[in-house]
Protein backbone atom coordinates (compact mmCIF):
# COMPACT_ATOMS: atom_id res chain seq x y z
CA UNK A 1 0.00 0.00 0.00
CA UNK A 2 1.42 3.23 -1.08
CA UNK A 3 -0.55 5.50 1.11
CA UNK A 4 0.46 9.13 1.03
CA UNK A 5 3.61 8.22 -0.72
CA UNK A 6 5.58 11.33 -1.28
CA UNK A 7 7.52 10.41 -4.39
CA UNK A 8 11.16 10.00 -3.54
CA UNK A 9 13.76 10.65 -6.12
CA UNK A 10 15.53 7.52 -7.26
CA UNK A 11 18.72 7.24 -5.27
CA UNK A 12 20.68 7.83 -8.39
CA UNK A 13 21.83 4.42 -9.44
CA UNK A 14 24.30 4.45 -12.24
CA UNK A 15 23.49 4.42 -15.91
CA UNK A 16 20.10 2.84 -15.69
CA UNK A 17 18.57 5.53 -13.56
CA UNK A 18 20.03 8.23 -15.72
CA UNK A 19 18.57 6.65 -18.78
CA UNK A 20 15.16 6.29 -17.21
CA UNK A 21 15.30 9.83 -15.95
CA UNK A 22 16.31 11.48 -19.18
CA UNK A 23 14.02 11.79 -22.07
CA UNK A 24 11.55 9.11 -21.11
CA UNK A 25 10.07 11.11 -18.26
CA UNK A 26 9.39 13.99 -20.52
CA UNK A 27 5.96 15.43 -20.08
CA UNK A 28 3.60 15.89 -22.92
CA UNK A 29 1.56 18.90 -23.74
CA UNK A 30 -1.88 18.61 -25.04
CA UNK A 31 -5.59 18.64 -24.74
CA UNK A 32 -5.80 15.33 -22.91
CA UNK A 33 -3.90 16.83 -20.00
CA UNK A 34 -6.44 19.56 -19.60
CA UNK A 35 -9.33 17.15 -19.99
CA UNK A 36 -7.87 15.11 -17.17
CA UNK A 37 -7.37 17.84 -14.66
CA UNK A 38 -10.25 20.12 -15.55
CA UNK A 39 -13.17 18.33 -13.87
CA UNK A 40 -11.30 18.03 -10.61
CA UNK A 41 -10.11 21.60 -10.71
CA UNK A 42 -13.54 22.95 -11.49
CA UNK A 43 -14.81 21.04 -8.51
CA UNK A 44 -12.05 22.45 -6.33
CA UNK A 45 -12.73 25.90 -7.67
CA UNK A 46 -16.41 25.69 -6.82
CA UNK A 47 -16.11 24.03 -3.47
CA UNK A 48 -12.79 25.19 -2.16
CA UNK A 49 -11.60 28.39 -3.77
CA UNK A 50 -14.94 30.14 -4.00
CA UNK A 51 -15.93 29.20 -0.45
CA UNK A 52 -12.67 30.53 0.86
CA UNK A 53 -13.38 33.79 -0.92
CA UNK A 54 -16.87 33.99 0.48
CA UNK A 55 -15.39 33.34 3.88
CA UNK A 56 -13.01 36.19 3.26
CA UNK A 57 -15.92 38.42 2.31
CA UNK A 58 -17.87 37.38 5.38
CA UNK A 59 -14.95 38.20 7.61
CA UNK A 60 -15.28 41.83 6.58
CA UNK A 61 -19.02 42.21 7.24
CA UNK A 62 -20.39 44.48 9.89
CA UNK A 63 -23.36 44.29 12.14
CA UNK A 64 -25.55 47.29 11.33
CA UNK A 65 -26.97 49.11 14.34
CA UNK A 66 -30.11 47.46 15.60
CA UNK A 67 -29.58 44.30 13.60
CA UNK A 68 -30.76 41.14 15.17
CA UNK A 69 -28.72 38.05 15.93
CA UNK A 70 -27.21 36.61 12.77
CA UNK A 71 -27.84 39.67 10.64
CA UNK A 72 -24.86 41.34 9.00
CA UNK A 73 -24.22 43.71 6.18
CA UNK A 74 -21.51 43.46 3.53
CA UNK A 75 -18.69 45.87 4.27
CA UNK A 76 -14.94 46.09 4.43
CA UNK A 77 -14.59 46.04 8.18
CA UNK A 78 -10.95 45.14 8.65
CA UNK A 79 -11.41 45.99 12.29
CA UNK A 80 -12.95 42.54 12.75
CA UNK A 81 -9.51 41.09 12.44
CA UNK A 82 -8.09 43.34 15.10
CA UNK A 83 -10.94 42.56 17.44
CA UNK A 84 -10.76 38.78 17.25
CA UNK A 85 -7.01 38.72 17.20
CA UNK A 86 -6.99 40.95 20.26
CA UNK A 87 -9.30 38.63 22.15
CA UNK A 88 -8.16 35.25 20.96
CA UNK A 89 -4.44 35.38 20.34
CA UNK A 90 -3.83 33.22 23.40
CA UNK A 91 -6.03 30.46 22.00
CA UNK A 92 -4.30 30.77 18.67
CA UNK A 93 -0.89 30.44 20.25
CA UNK A 94 -2.10 27.60 22.43
CA UNK A 95 -3.45 25.75 19.42
CA UNK A 96 -0.09 25.93 17.75
CA UNK A 97 1.68 24.93 20.93
CA UNK A 98 -0.59 21.91 21.44
CA UNK A 99 -0.33 20.96 17.79
CA UNK A 100 3.43 21.26 17.97
CA UNK A 101 3.72 19.05 21.02
CA UNK A 102 1.26 16.55 19.58
CA UNK A 103 3.19 16.52 16.31
CA UNK A 104 6.45 15.89 18.11
CA UNK A 105 4.86 13.12 20.17
CA UNK A 106 3.28 11.57 17.10
CA UNK A 107 6.64 11.66 15.36
CA UNK A 108 8.28 9.97 18.32
CA UNK A 109 5.64 7.26 18.32
CA UNK A 110 4.92 7.03 14.63
CA UNK A 111 8.49 6.87 13.36
CA UNK A 112 9.38 3.66 15.17
CA UNK A 113 6.09 2.15 14.05
CA UNK A 114 6.78 3.06 10.45
CA UNK A 115 10.39 1.92 10.75
CA UNK A 116 9.38 -1.36 12.29
CA UNK A 117 6.93 -2.13 9.52
CA UNK A 118 8.86 -0.71 6.59
CA UNK A 119 12.43 -1.66 7.38
CA UNK A 120 12.58 -4.30 10.05
CA UNK A 121 9.76 -6.35 8.61
CA UNK A 122 10.80 -5.82 5.02
CA UNK A 123 10.07 -8.89 2.97
CA UNK A 124 7.50 -10.19 5.43
CA UNK A 125 4.63 -9.04 3.30
CA UNK A 126 1.79 -10.54 5.28
CA UNK A 127 2.82 -9.18 8.65
CA UNK A 128 3.56 -5.84 7.05
CA UNK A 129 0.12 -5.79 5.53
CA UNK A 130 -1.58 -6.59 8.79
CA UNK A 131 0.26 -3.92 10.73
CA UNK A 132 -0.40 -1.38 8.01
CA UNK A 133 -4.09 -2.08 8.24
CA UNK A 134 -3.91 -1.69 11.97
CA UNK A 135 -2.54 1.77 11.39
CA UNK A 136 -5.51 2.87 9.27
CA UNK A 137 -8.25 0.71 10.68
CA UNK A 138 -8.84 2.97 13.70
CA UNK A 139 -10.41 5.41 11.26
CA UNK A 140 -13.26 2.98 10.99
CA UNK A 141 -14.00 2.96 14.70
CA UNK A 142 -14.83 6.63 14.53
CA UNK A 143 -12.58 9.27 15.88
CA UNK A 144 -15.11 10.41 18.46
CA UNK A 145 -15.84 6.96 19.77
CA UNK A 146 -12.12 6.44 20.33
CA UNK A 147 -11.71 9.81 21.96
CA UNK A 148 -14.67 9.08 24.16
CA UNK A 149 -13.04 5.79 25.03
CA UNK A 150 -9.86 7.60 26.04
CA UNK A 151 -11.96 9.88 28.14
CA UNK A 152 -13.39 6.91 29.98
CA UNK A 153 -10.07 5.15 30.27
CA UNK A 154 -8.41 8.23 31.70
CA UNK A 155 -11.41 9.33 33.82
CA UNK A 156 -10.89 10.07 37.50
CA UNK A 157 -12.72 6.90 38.41
CA UNK A 158 -11.36 4.93 35.44
CA UNK A 159 -8.73 2.19 35.48
CA UNK A 160 -5.66 4.37 35.07
CA UNK A 161 -5.89 7.32 37.44
CA UNK A 162 -6.24 5.31 40.70
CA UNK A 163 -3.23 3.22 39.74
CA UNK A 164 -1.13 6.27 38.98
CA UNK A 165 -2.22 7.82 42.22
CA UNK A 166 -1.35 4.68 44.14
CA UNK A 167 2.06 4.67 42.50
CA UNK A 168 2.40 8.35 43.41
CA UNK A 169 2.90 9.16 39.79
CA UNK A 170 -0.03 11.47 40.16
CA UNK A 171 -0.89 13.54 43.23
CA UNK A 172 -3.84 12.35 45.29
CA UNK A 173 -6.14 14.89 43.67
CA UNK A 174 -4.38 14.72 40.32
CA UNK A 175 -6.24 13.78 37.21
CA UNK A 176 -5.67 13.11 33.56
CA UNK A 177 -8.82 14.21 31.81
CA UNK A 178 -9.85 17.82 31.56
CA UNK A 179 -6.18 18.72 31.33
CA UNK A 180 -3.91 20.01 28.64
CA UNK A 181 -2.13 16.70 28.85
CA UNK A 182 -5.27 14.83 27.90
CA UNK A 183 -5.94 17.14 24.97
CA UNK A 184 -2.44 16.72 23.62
CA UNK A 185 -2.68 12.96 24.08
CA UNK A 186 -5.94 12.96 22.18
CA UNK A 187 -4.45 14.99 19.36
CA UNK A 188 -1.39 12.77 19.24
CA UNK A 189 -3.49 9.69 19.19
CA UNK A 190 -5.98 10.81 16.61
CA UNK A 191 -3.48 12.11 14.11
CA UNK A 192 -0.96 9.34 14.54
CA UNK A 193 -1.92 7.59 11.28
CA UNK A 194 -1.31 10.80 9.36
CA UNK A 195 2.21 10.81 10.74
CA UNK A 196 2.91 7.13 10.35
CA UNK A 197 1.68 6.54 6.81
CA UNK A 198 3.85 9.04 4.93
CA UNK A 199 6.91 8.03 6.91
CA UNK A 200 6.12 4.42 6.15
CA UNK A 201 5.69 5.17 2.47
CA UNK A 202 9.08 6.82 2.47
CA UNK A 203 10.96 4.24 4.52
CA UNK A 204 9.48 1.47 2.45
CA UNK A 205 11.57 2.66 -0.43
CA UNK A 206 14.66 3.26 1.62
CA UNK A 207 17.57 1.40 0.13
CA UNK A 208 18.81 -0.65 3.06
CA UNK A 209 22.12 -0.99 1.34
CA UNK A 210 22.72 2.60 2.32
CA UNK A 211 22.38 1.58 5.95
CA UNK A 212 24.92 -1.12 5.32
CA UNK A 213 27.20 1.38 3.65
CA UNK A 214 26.89 3.50 6.78
CA UNK A 215 27.94 0.70 9.07
CA UNK A 216 30.69 -0.25 6.64
CA UNK A 217 32.00 3.29 7.08
CA UNK A 218 32.35 3.02 10.86
CA UNK A 219 28.95 4.44 11.82
CA UNK A 220 27.31 2.68 14.76
CA UNK A 221 23.63 1.78 14.59
CA UNK A 222 22.47 5.03 16.08
CA UNK A 223 24.89 7.13 14.07
CA UNK A 224 23.76 5.45 10.90
CA UNK A 225 20.22 6.29 11.83
CA UNK A 226 21.09 9.90 12.55
CA UNK A 227 23.27 10.48 9.53
CA UNK A 228 21.70 8.26 6.90
CA UNK A 229 18.24 6.89 7.65
CA UNK A 230 16.70 9.96 9.20
CA UNK A 231 17.92 12.48 6.62
CA UNK A 232 16.80 10.19 3.83
CA UNK A 233 13.35 9.85 5.32
CA UNK A 234 12.95 13.59 5.76
CA UNK A 235 10.44 13.94 2.93
CA UNK A 236 8.23 11.44 4.73
CA UNK A 237 8.81 13.13 8.06
CA UNK A 238 7.94 16.49 6.61
CA UNK A 239 4.78 15.18 4.96
CA UNK A 240 3.84 13.46 8.20
CA UNK A 241 4.48 16.45 10.40
CA UNK A 242 2.48 18.70 8.09
CA UNK A 243 -0.41 16.29 7.88
CA UNK A 244 -0.42 16.05 11.66
CA UNK A 245 0.28 19.62 12.60
CA UNK A 246 -2.24 21.24 10.29
CA UNK A 247 -5.36 19.36 11.31
CA UNK A 248 -4.25 19.25 14.92
CA UNK A 249 -3.95 23.01 15.13
CA UNK A 250 -7.46 23.43 13.79
CA UNK A 251 -9.04 20.65 15.78
CA UNK A 252 -11.60 21.25 18.49
CA UNK A 253 -13.12 17.88 19.19
CA UNK A 254 -10.25 16.71 21.37
CA UNK A 255 -10.24 19.92 23.33
CA UNK A 256 -14.00 19.78 23.69
CA UNK A 257 -14.12 16.21 24.88
CA UNK A 258 -10.87 15.92 26.81
CA UNK A 259 -10.16 19.47 27.83
CA UNK A 260 -11.46 21.94 30.38
CA UNK A 261 -12.62 25.47 29.87
CA UNK A 262 -9.52 27.04 31.22
CA UNK A 263 -6.20 26.25 29.73
CA UNK A 264 -7.07 23.90 26.90
CA UNK A 265 -9.30 25.97 24.67
CA UNK A 266 -8.13 25.76 21.10
CA UNK A 267 -8.81 28.15 18.29
CA UNK A 268 -11.07 25.65 16.57
CA UNK A 269 -13.38 25.68 19.54
CA UNK A 270 -13.49 29.43 19.44
CA UNK A 271 -14.29 29.46 15.74
CA UNK A 272 -16.98 26.86 16.32
CA UNK A 273 -18.54 28.77 19.16
CA UNK A 274 -18.29 32.10 17.31
CA UNK A 275 -20.16 30.47 14.48
CA UNK A 276 -22.63 28.41 16.39
CA UNK A 277 -23.11 29.86 19.83
CA UNK A 278 -22.42 33.54 19.56
CA UNK A 279 -23.56 33.70 15.92
CA UNK A 280 -20.77 36.11 15.12
CA UNK A 281 -20.11 35.16 11.52
CA UNK A 282 -17.68 37.95 10.67
CA UNK A 283 -15.65 37.25 13.79
CA UNK A 284 -15.65 33.54 13.16
CA UNK A 285 -14.71 34.03 9.54
CA UNK A 286 -11.94 36.44 10.46
CA UNK A 287 -10.56 33.96 12.97
CA UNK A 288 -10.73 31.19 10.37
CA UNK A 289 -8.81 33.32 7.99
CA UNK A 290 -6.21 34.23 10.54
CA UNK A 291 -5.77 30.57 11.35
CA UNK A 292 -5.41 29.64 7.71
CA UNK A 293 -2.89 32.39 7.03
CA UNK A 294 -0.92 31.59 10.15
CA UNK A 295 -0.70 27.96 9.13
CA UNK A 296 0.30 28.86 5.61
CA UNK A 297 3.04 31.10 6.88
CA UNK A 298 4.29 28.46 9.31
CA UNK A 299 4.14 25.72 6.73
CA UNK A 300 5.90 27.76 4.10
CA UNK A 301 8.65 28.69 6.51
CA UNK A 302 8.98 25.09 7.59
CA UNK A 303 9.09 23.72 4.10
CA UNK A 304 11.59 26.39 3.07
CA UNK A 305 13.76 25.56 6.01
CA UNK A 306 13.75 21.81 5.60
CA UNK A 307 13.32 21.87 1.86
CA UNK A 308 11.03 19.46 0.17
CA UNK A 309 8.70 20.32 -2.58
CA UNK A 310 7.27 16.87 -2.63
CA UNK A 311 3.98 17.84 -1.09
CA UNK A 312 3.44 21.20 -2.62
Amino acid at each position, binding site marked *: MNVLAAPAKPAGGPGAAEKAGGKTLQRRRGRTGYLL*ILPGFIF*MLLFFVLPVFSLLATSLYTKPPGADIGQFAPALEFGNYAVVLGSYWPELLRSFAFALVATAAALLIGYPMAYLVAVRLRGRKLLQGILLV*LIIAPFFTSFILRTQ*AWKQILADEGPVVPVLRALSLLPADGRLTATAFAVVCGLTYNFLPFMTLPIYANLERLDTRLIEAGSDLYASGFTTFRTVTLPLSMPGVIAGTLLTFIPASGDYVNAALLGNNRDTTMIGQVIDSRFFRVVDYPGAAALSFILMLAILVLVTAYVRRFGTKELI
Partner: protein
Amino acid sequence: MRKTIGRWLVPVFGGLAFIFLLVPIGYVFAFSFNDAGRTNLSWRGFTLENWLNPCGAPAVCEALGNSLQIGAAATVMATILGTAIAIGLVRYRFRFNATANMLIFLPLATPEVVLGASLLAQFLNIGAELGMGTIIIAHTMFCISFVVVTVKARVASLDPKLEEAAADLYASPLQAFWRVTFPLLLPGIVAAALLAFAMSFDDFIITNFNSGNVDTFPKFIYVAATRGIPAQANVIGSAMFLIALAIVIGGQVLSHRRSKLLAAR
Protein backbone atom coordinates in the same frame (compact mmCIF):
# COMPACT_ATOMS: atom_id res chain seq x y z
CA MET B 1 25.24 -5.90 24.83
CA ARG B 2 24.62 -2.54 23.17
CA LYS B 3 23.90 -4.33 19.97
CA THR B 4 21.12 -6.41 21.55
CA ILE B 5 19.49 -3.31 22.96
CA GLY B 6 19.65 -1.72 19.54
CA ARG B 7 18.16 -4.80 17.99
CA TRP B 8 15.22 -4.83 20.39
CA LEU B 9 14.63 -1.16 20.86
CA VAL B 10 12.70 -0.64 17.66
CA PRO B 11 10.41 -3.69 17.92
CA VAL B 12 9.65 -3.00 21.56
CA PHE B 13 9.00 0.67 21.08
CA GLY B 14 7.10 0.09 17.86
CA GLY B 15 5.08 -2.62 19.55
CA LEU B 16 4.18 -0.28 22.40
CA ALA B 17 3.10 2.29 19.84
CA PHE B 18 0.79 -0.25 18.28
CA ILE B 19 -0.66 -1.03 21.67
CA PHE B 20 -1.22 2.68 22.25
CA LEU B 21 -3.03 2.77 18.94
CA LEU B 22 -5.23 -0.15 19.82
CA VAL B 23 -6.08 0.41 23.49
CA PRO B 24 -9.13 2.61 22.95
CA ILE B 25 -10.35 0.29 20.25
CA GLY B 26 -10.08 -2.55 22.71
CA TYR B 27 -12.08 -0.47 25.16
CA VAL B 28 -14.76 0.23 22.58
CA PHE B 29 -14.86 -3.45 21.76
CA ALA B 30 -15.11 -4.54 25.37
CA PHE B 31 -17.93 -2.11 26.14
CA SER B 32 -19.85 -3.35 23.12
CA PHE B 33 -20.59 -6.34 25.36
CA ASN B 34 -21.72 -4.23 28.28
CA ASP B 35 -25.20 -4.74 29.56
CA ALA B 36 -25.59 -0.97 29.46
CA GLY B 37 -28.47 1.23 30.39
CA ARG B 38 -29.08 4.67 28.92
CA THR B 39 -25.38 5.30 29.35
CA ASN B 40 -22.52 2.95 28.63
CA LEU B 41 -20.03 4.36 31.08
CA SER B 42 -19.67 1.72 33.75
CA TRP B 43 -19.43 -2.03 33.44
CA ARG B 44 -22.75 -3.61 34.30
CA GLY B 45 -22.31 -7.14 33.07
CA PHE B 46 -21.65 -9.13 29.96
CA THR B 47 -24.26 -9.51 27.26
CA LEU B 48 -24.41 -10.46 23.62
CA GLU B 49 -27.64 -8.54 23.29
CA ASN B 50 -26.01 -5.52 21.63
CA TRP B 51 -24.32 -7.63 19.01
CA LEU B 52 -27.46 -9.62 18.31
CA ASN B 53 -29.46 -6.47 17.94
CA PRO B 54 -27.11 -3.83 16.57
CA CYS B 55 -29.95 -1.62 15.41
CA GLY B 56 -31.53 -1.64 18.85
CA ALA B 57 -30.79 2.04 19.00
CA PRO B 58 -32.38 2.82 15.63
CA ALA B 59 -30.67 6.15 15.06
CA VAL B 60 -27.30 4.38 15.17
CA CYS B 61 -28.01 2.22 12.18
CA GLU B 62 -29.54 5.05 10.26
CA ALA B 63 -26.47 7.17 10.91
CA LEU B 64 -24.24 4.29 9.91
CA GLY B 65 -26.20 3.82 6.70
CA ASN B 66 -25.76 7.49 5.88
CA SER B 67 -22.06 7.33 6.63
CA LEU B 68 -21.58 4.33 4.39
CA GLN B 69 -23.50 5.95 1.54
CA ILE B 70 -21.64 9.20 1.90
CA GLY B 71 -18.34 7.39 2.16
CA ALA B 72 -19.03 5.38 -0.95
CA ALA B 73 -20.19 8.36 -3.00
CA ALA B 74 -17.41 10.67 -1.87
CA THR B 75 -14.81 7.96 -2.39
CA VAL B 76 -15.95 7.28 -5.93
CA MET B 77 -16.03 10.95 -6.84
CA ALA B 78 -12.81 11.91 -5.15
CA THR B 79 -11.02 8.89 -6.56
CA ILE B 80 -12.10 9.57 -10.11
CA LEU B 81 -11.43 13.29 -10.03
CA GLY B 82 -8.23 12.92 -8.02
CA THR B 83 -6.79 10.13 -10.13
CA ALA B 84 -7.40 12.13 -13.27
CA ILE B 85 -5.66 15.12 -11.75
CA ALA B 86 -2.75 13.00 -10.59
CA ILE B 87 -2.22 11.51 -14.02
CA GLY B 88 -2.62 14.89 -15.66
CA LEU B 89 -0.19 16.62 -13.36
CA VAL B 90 2.53 14.01 -13.67
CA ARG B 91 2.24 13.27 -17.34
CA TYR B 92 1.39 16.59 -18.86
CA ARG B 93 2.90 20.00 -18.84
CA PHE B 94 0.79 23.02 -18.02
CA ARG B 95 1.56 26.63 -17.97
CA PHE B 96 0.10 26.94 -14.49
CA ASN B 97 1.75 23.88 -13.02
CA ALA B 98 2.78 25.55 -9.79
CA THR B 99 -0.68 26.99 -9.27
CA ALA B 100 -2.23 23.60 -9.87
CA ASN B 101 0.02 21.95 -7.34
CA MET B 102 -0.73 24.70 -4.87
CA LEU B 103 -4.44 24.22 -5.37
CA ILE B 104 -4.03 20.59 -4.40
CA PHE B 105 -1.89 21.38 -1.42
CA LEU B 106 -4.01 24.20 0.01
CA PRO B 107 -6.92 22.08 1.24
CA LEU B 108 -4.40 19.94 3.08
CA ALA B 109 -3.03 23.07 4.71
CA THR B 110 -6.44 24.32 5.72
CA PRO B 111 -7.83 23.26 9.06
CA GLU B 112 -11.10 21.46 9.00
CA VAL B 113 -13.01 24.19 10.80
CA VAL B 114 -12.05 26.60 8.09
CA LEU B 115 -12.96 24.20 5.32
CA GLY B 116 -16.26 23.41 6.98
CA ALA B 117 -17.11 26.99 7.72
CA SER B 118 -16.26 28.35 4.31
CA LEU B 119 -18.14 25.64 2.54
CA LEU B 120 -21.13 26.25 4.75
CA ALA B 121 -21.01 29.93 3.92
CA GLN B 122 -20.95 28.99 0.26
CA PHE B 123 -23.85 26.59 0.52
CA LEU B 124 -25.92 29.12 2.38
CA ASN B 125 -25.10 31.73 -0.20
CA ILE B 126 -26.38 29.66 -3.06
CA GLY B 127 -29.28 28.44 -0.98
CA ALA B 128 -28.32 24.79 -1.21
CA GLU B 129 -30.31 22.52 1.03
CA LEU B 130 -27.95 20.98 3.57
CA GLY B 131 -28.07 17.23 3.61
CA MET B 132 -26.56 14.16 1.99
CA GLY B 133 -25.64 16.11 -1.13
CA THR B 134 -23.74 18.81 0.66
CA ILE B 135 -21.94 16.28 2.86
CA ILE B 136 -20.86 14.30 -0.16
CA ILE B 137 -19.57 17.42 -1.86
CA ALA B 138 -17.71 18.46 1.26
CA HIS B 139 -16.15 15.04 1.70
CA THR B 140 -15.22 14.79 -1.95
CA MET B 141 -13.53 18.15 -1.68
CA PHE B 142 -11.26 17.26 1.21
CA CYS B 143 -10.56 13.75 -0.09
CA ILE B 144 -9.42 14.85 -3.54
CA SER B 145 -6.12 16.21 -2.29
CA PHE B 146 -5.31 13.01 -0.49
CA VAL B 147 -6.16 10.98 -3.57
CA VAL B 148 -4.01 13.19 -5.76
CA VAL B 149 -1.03 12.98 -3.44
CA THR B 150 -1.30 9.22 -3.12
CA VAL B 151 -1.90 8.43 -6.77
CA LYS B 152 0.70 10.92 -7.95
CA ALA B 153 3.40 8.95 -6.24
CA ARG B 154 2.27 5.88 -8.07
CA VAL B 155 2.05 7.59 -11.43
CA ALA B 156 5.50 9.02 -10.97
CA SER B 157 6.92 5.59 -10.33
CA LEU B 158 5.18 4.17 -13.36
CA ASP B 159 7.58 3.58 -16.23
CA PRO B 160 6.28 5.59 -19.21
CA LYS B 161 8.02 3.08 -21.41
CA LEU B 162 5.21 0.67 -20.64
CA GLU B 163 2.68 2.96 -22.24
CA GLU B 164 4.97 3.41 -25.18
CA ALA B 165 5.28 -0.34 -25.44
CA ALA B 166 1.50 -0.58 -25.53
CA ALA B 167 1.31 2.01 -28.30
CA ASP B 168 4.05 0.16 -30.11
CA LEU B 169 1.91 -2.97 -29.83
CA TYR B 170 -1.04 -1.42 -31.63
CA ALA B 171 -2.96 -0.25 -28.56
CA SER B 172 -4.83 3.01 -29.14
CA PRO B 173 -4.36 5.61 -26.40
CA LEU B 174 -7.60 4.55 -24.75
CA GLN B 175 -6.69 0.88 -24.87
CA ALA B 176 -3.24 1.66 -23.56
CA PHE B 177 -4.84 3.42 -20.63
CA TRP B 178 -7.30 0.71 -19.70
CA ARG B 179 -5.05 -2.26 -20.36
CA VAL B 180 -1.76 -0.96 -19.07
CA THR B 181 -1.82 2.33 -17.20
CA PHE B 182 -4.92 1.74 -15.15
CA PRO B 183 -4.16 -1.77 -13.92
CA LEU B 184 -0.68 -0.65 -12.94
CA LEU B 185 -2.02 2.35 -11.06
CA LEU B 186 -4.69 0.26 -9.44
CA PRO B 187 -2.86 -0.53 -6.20
CA GLY B 188 -2.23 3.17 -5.71
CA ILE B 189 -5.80 4.01 -6.60
CA VAL B 190 -7.13 1.39 -4.21
CA ALA B 191 -4.94 2.72 -1.44
CA ALA B 192 -6.16 6.23 -2.18
CA ALA B 193 -9.78 5.10 -2.23
CA LEU B 194 -9.34 3.27 1.03
CA LEU B 195 -7.85 6.33 2.61
CA ALA B 196 -10.58 8.54 1.19
CA PHE B 197 -13.27 6.25 2.49
CA ALA B 198 -11.64 6.07 5.89
CA MET B 199 -11.39 9.83 6.12
CA SER B 200 -14.93 10.37 4.95
CA PHE B 201 -16.23 7.76 7.32
CA ASP B 202 -14.39 9.30 10.23
CA ASP B 203 -14.98 12.96 9.53
CA PHE B 204 -16.86 14.98 12.06
CA ILE B 205 -15.90 18.62 11.91
CA ILE B 206 -16.60 19.37 8.27
CA THR B 207 -19.67 17.18 8.35
CA ASN B 208 -20.99 18.99 11.38
CA PHE B 209 -20.92 22.25 9.47
CA ASN B 210 -22.54 21.01 6.32
CA SER B 211 -24.83 18.17 7.22
CA GLY B 212 -28.02 19.97 8.18
CA ASN B 213 -30.18 17.45 9.94
CA VAL B 214 -28.60 14.35 8.42
CA ASP B 215 -26.79 12.29 11.01
CA THR B 216 -23.57 10.53 10.15
CA PHE B 217 -22.06 7.94 12.42
CA PRO B 218 -19.46 10.26 13.97
CA LYS B 219 -22.01 13.01 14.28
CA PHE B 220 -24.45 10.69 15.96
CA ILE B 221 -21.79 9.72 18.44
CA TYR B 222 -20.75 13.29 19.09
CA VAL B 223 -24.32 14.22 19.90
CA ALA B 224 -24.92 11.00 21.77
CA ALA B 225 -21.84 11.65 23.87
CA THR B 226 -23.80 14.40 25.60
CA ARG B 227 -26.54 12.08 26.75
CA GLY B 228 -24.98 8.61 26.70
CA ILE B 229 -23.59 6.66 23.79
CA PRO B 230 -25.64 3.50 23.29
CA ALA B 231 -23.71 0.24 23.40
CA GLN B 232 -24.87 -0.41 19.84
CA ALA B 233 -22.54 2.35 18.72
CA ASN B 234 -19.69 0.37 20.22
CA VAL B 235 -20.89 -2.68 18.37
CA ILE B 236 -20.86 -0.82 15.09
CA GLY B 237 -17.53 0.85 15.74
CA SER B 238 -15.97 -2.50 16.60
CA ALA B 239 -17.63 -4.25 13.70
CA MET B 240 -16.44 -1.66 11.19
CA PHE B 241 -12.93 -1.99 12.53
CA LEU B 242 -13.05 -5.76 12.31
CA ILE B 243 -14.58 -5.72 8.84
CA ALA B 244 -11.96 -3.32 7.53
CA LEU B 245 -9.29 -5.49 9.09
CA ALA B 246 -10.77 -8.67 7.67
CA ILE B 247 -11.15 -7.28 4.17
CA VAL B 248 -7.65 -5.99 3.91
CA ILE B 249 -6.02 -8.94 5.60
CA GLY B 250 -8.11 -11.26 3.48
CA GLY B 251 -6.91 -9.46 0.38
CA GLN B 252 -3.34 -9.64 1.60
CA VAL B 253 -3.55 -13.33 2.33
CA LEU B 254 -5.11 -14.02 -1.03
CA SER B 255 -2.52 -12.12 -3.01
CA HIS B 256 0.18 -13.67 -0.86
CA ARG B 257 -1.14 -17.13 -1.68
CA ARG B 258 -1.47 -16.32 -5.31
CA SER B 259 2.06 -15.04 -5.63
CA LYS B 260 3.30 -18.10 -3.78
CA LEU B 261 1.35 -20.35 -6.10
CA LEU B 262 2.65 -18.52 -9.13
CA ALA B 263 6.20 -18.71 -7.86
CA ALA B 264 5.80 -22.40 -7.19
CA ARG B 265 4.75 -23.16 -10.73
